[in-house]
Structure formats: C-alpha cells, structure tokens
C-alpha cells in the first residue's frame, strides 16, 4: 500500500514537472452554468450555450487553449481576482461598479433589455415583491425602484419563487426569460415595460491581465466583423434579439 501511494505521488510530481516544461498555460474560463441560453449544463453535464460557443470560438481565434469551469455566481468575482480561473464569461453586464474591481473586454452581446415576468400581466411592479438574482444589475435596479427586493442565488430559484407565489414577479435579462415564458404554456407572462440596463455583456478579466484582454478584444472584433456573433445571437436568443449593427 505504501509503495502504491509513494509511486503514485512520484508519478503525480513528475507529471507536474513535465507539464510545467510544456506549452503555454491553459486559460480557465469561469462561468455559472445556470443561466440558459447564456450558459448552462447540458444533459451530458458539460457547459453549453451561447457563451460556450462564443468562448470556444474566441479561444480558437486568439490561439489559446481554454478549459471551462463552473463557479457559483455569488463568488464569481472574488474567485477571479484570487486566480482560481482567468476569465468570467457568464452573462455579466458591464457596469461601472464591477469595472472598478475587474476589467472587461468589449461587449460580445449588445446592451439588451431586462424585463419583468409574472403570473399575470398586471402584477404590481413598483410596490410588490420582486425576485432577482443576487449581485446582478437587475437586483440593483429593483432595490432602487421602490419594490421589495427578494434575492436568490440562482436564476432558477427566482423563477421558482414566482411559481410558488413567494414573489409577484421576476426581474431578469429578457433573453433569459423568453425561453421560460415560452415553456410555461401561458402560465407566466411578461409584465410592464422592458427596461434597458447595463452596457452589454462582456468578458471579465483581472485588471492586471492586459495582454489577455487585448487578445480577446481582437478576437471579438473579428467575430463582430464577419458576422459570427450576430449569427450566434439569432441562433441562441431568437430572431427578436438585439444584434450588433
């Protein structure tokens, strides 16, 4: 037994050394995996969605080796700055508050609307209880709107809160809400007007990683120019989604 342990430790160590000598580092892409169609885990348990497709394409164009990891939304920024992964690609809107802590690439989804989803179209959006995901721009907006904010760790939990009657409505990215409304068979509907929020969705990076940021910016620019991004937006978010001009 001791021998097995020793030899496996030796093996692990030598493998580590061999790898260290090898090629450039792998870029670890941090995502949430619970926000379809942006990012989610498919039936095989792998990260899938618009951001998976775009992220892989960006890595290919920037000639980087990438690997996907999931992390809870709540701690996604601290784990980036402490170096557990190298990028955040999780439907994160570019805002001034976040920009003070981390850096963003240019947006790969144009500034889009957020919307309210409720069981009836005349739900009380200004005085009622509104569910939103923690630390999102939507949560910040609800807090200032005068409604009672009910925060949840995941998007799924916010929808469940409306279904159970705990909250009057959910406030989230419209692109995320559309599939939920469609699948509910009329039980859930959009309420009130759409609200334009944020500066679009970009990839989050550590402020010190300027080189990586330039590489991804170049990749995104080329993907915007040849229409790859617009095609993928239509594919994942539908014909009505906002595309780059």
């Amino acid at each position, binding site marked *: 037994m001791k021998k097995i342990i020793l030899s496996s430790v030796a093996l692990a160590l030598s493998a580590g050394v061999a790898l*260290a000598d090898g090629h450039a580092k792998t870029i670890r892409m941090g995502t949430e995996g619970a926000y379809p169609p942006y990012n989610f885990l498919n039936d095989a*348990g792998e990260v899938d969605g618009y951001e998976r497709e775009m992220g892989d394409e960006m890595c290919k164009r920037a000639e980087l080796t990438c690997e996907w990891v999931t992390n809870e939304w709540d701690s996604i920024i601290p784990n980036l700055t402490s170096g557990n992964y190298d990028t955040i690609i999780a439907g994160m809107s570019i805002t001034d508050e976040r920009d003070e802590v981390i850096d963003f690439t240019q947006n790969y989804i144009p500034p889009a609307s957020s919307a309210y989803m409720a069981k009836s179209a005349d739900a009380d959006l200004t005085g009622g209880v509104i569910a939103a995901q923690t630390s999102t721009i939507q949560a910040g907006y609800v807090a200032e709107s005068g409604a009672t904010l009910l925060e949840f760790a995941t998007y*799924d939990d916010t929808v469940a809160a409306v279904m159970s009657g705990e909250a009057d409505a959910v406030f989230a990215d419209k692109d995320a809400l559309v*599939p939920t409304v469609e699948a509910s068979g009329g039980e859930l509907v959009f309420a009130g007007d759409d609200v334009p929020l944020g500066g679009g969705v970009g990839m989050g990076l550590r402020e010190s990683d300027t080189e990586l940021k330039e590489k991804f910016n170049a990749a995104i620019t080329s993907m915007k120019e040849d229409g790859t991004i617009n095609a993928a937006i239509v594919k994942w978010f539908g014909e009505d989604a906002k595309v780059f001009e």
Partner: protein
Amino acid sequence: MFEYCVDPPSLEGLVWLSCYLTTGKHMAFYGAFGTVLLLLAITAPTALAFGFGGAMAARARLAPLRWFGKGYIAIVRGVPDIAFFLFFVIALDQGIEYLRHRWKCPEWDEPIRQGSDFLVCQAAKMPLGNSAQWVHEAYGFSLAVLTFAIVFGAFAANVLFGAMQAVPRAQIETAEAYGMSPRQTFWRITVPQMWVYALPGLSNLWMVLIKATPLLFLLGVEDIVYWARDLGSAKTPRFTDYPHGDWRVYYFLVLLIFYLAFTRVSEVVLDRVMARLTLGQATTAGEAQRKGA
C-alpha cells in the same frame, strides 16, 4: 446510455425515465455520492488524528505546546464553520502560492497584491495553469479535506481532552505505583481506557460531519446538493432533451433518504463499537455487561 435513448421526446413512461436517469449529468450526480463518501472516509481519520494531537498538546507539560493546543481548540471552536471555510481555504491557497512564488520566482519584482488581484508568477500557481481539470479538482478536494479535518479536529480534540481527564484517577495512581513513567501511563493506561468516554462525543461529531458535507460546494467541489439543485430545477425543452417542471423536491427527498439511511447505519455501527469498548471497563455500562454475561 441505452441504445433506445436516441430520440428522448418520443419516449414515454419508464423507458423515458430509464433514459433520463442515465444522462451524463445524472452520472455526475451519482458520482458525487462517491465524492461525499470519499471525503468522509479520508476526513474522519484525519480529523481524529488532528484531535488526538490537539488533545495531547493541550495536556502537554511544556507551556508553549500547551498554549498551542488550547489555542487551536479555542479558536477553531469559536469561529463559525462557514466563515472558517470561506476564509481558511482562500488564505491557505494564497499562502501556498505565496511561498512557492518566493521560492520559484525570486527575480519577480512586481507586487503580489495589485488592487484586488492576487498575482503570483505562472510557475508558482497551485495547481499549475496548464494542469488537467482533474488536478484542479483533486487540489480543491484536498483543501476541503484539510479544512474539514482542522475544524472537526478541534472539536475532536476537546472531546478527547475531556475523555483523557475522565479516566479514573485510581487507574493512573496504580500505574504510577507500578513504576510506570508518565509516557507509559499515558499510552498503556489512559489511551486504551479513554475511548469509552470519548465515543459519545465522537459519534456526535461523526453525525455532524456527515451532515456538514454540503459545505463542500462552498469550496468549489461539486457535491450532491449542487447536482440535486441543478437537476431538479425546471428545464425548458430548448436546452435539454428531457424537459420537466420544478422537481427539486424529489431530488432533495432522495438526499434526505440518503442522509437518513447513512446516519442510521452509522448509529448501528457506533452502538456495536460502544459495546465492544465498554467490555471490562469500570463504568456502569461495563458493570451491567459483566453481570449480564
């Protein structure tokens, strides 16, 4: 998984269920049960070792060692688990990387802390940036084991410390009368007899440890609670071949049954261990056993 699962929307009833329950995601869910059991299998003996060391240190005659032992018990027991888990893992991870950084990259002249970023050179990363995903997972898992061991070790140390003090003074005195050194008395008299006093406390800890495993998710290890939450949440047909409503309650029911069954088995085993340890002891239970035999 099965050949007939090619077109899930056309399936119904049990056939559909058999396909649904064998998706890659469900396999990861089943695998997570193994992760939890493995964590317990490694953590329990490690925590016991930490506890034993802590209790010995707290009883030491050498003052600094005694302060260390008492300090360990007092500090870790006093800090909420969740705060300790969040703080300690980040601190440990950054501490390891900082030391490796000093050792491997002495020529590095940029500051390690830049604003909120923690930066070390690539060679000092733990695990290395180009390591395979399983290395990252194994590293996260080891951090989890170590953190669990330290937290539960402190509680175990307190239990064992009390158990060592509970060994009847007459037994120690007899050993001294036979001319045993303190070391001999400790290993031959105190340790074999203390377990019967320690076991109720330790079995409590074991039960708490079993139920504390969902904290794994805080440490980035994908455990059964993480998968149950993800699998149970409502799925729309656009993103899965197996759409369903909010099934979290069923998944959490499975977890509930798992934990209940597991703690029940533990109780049975611990009762047997207790009966074995009581044998021939100068306690009420030991006396009752002697009379019953």
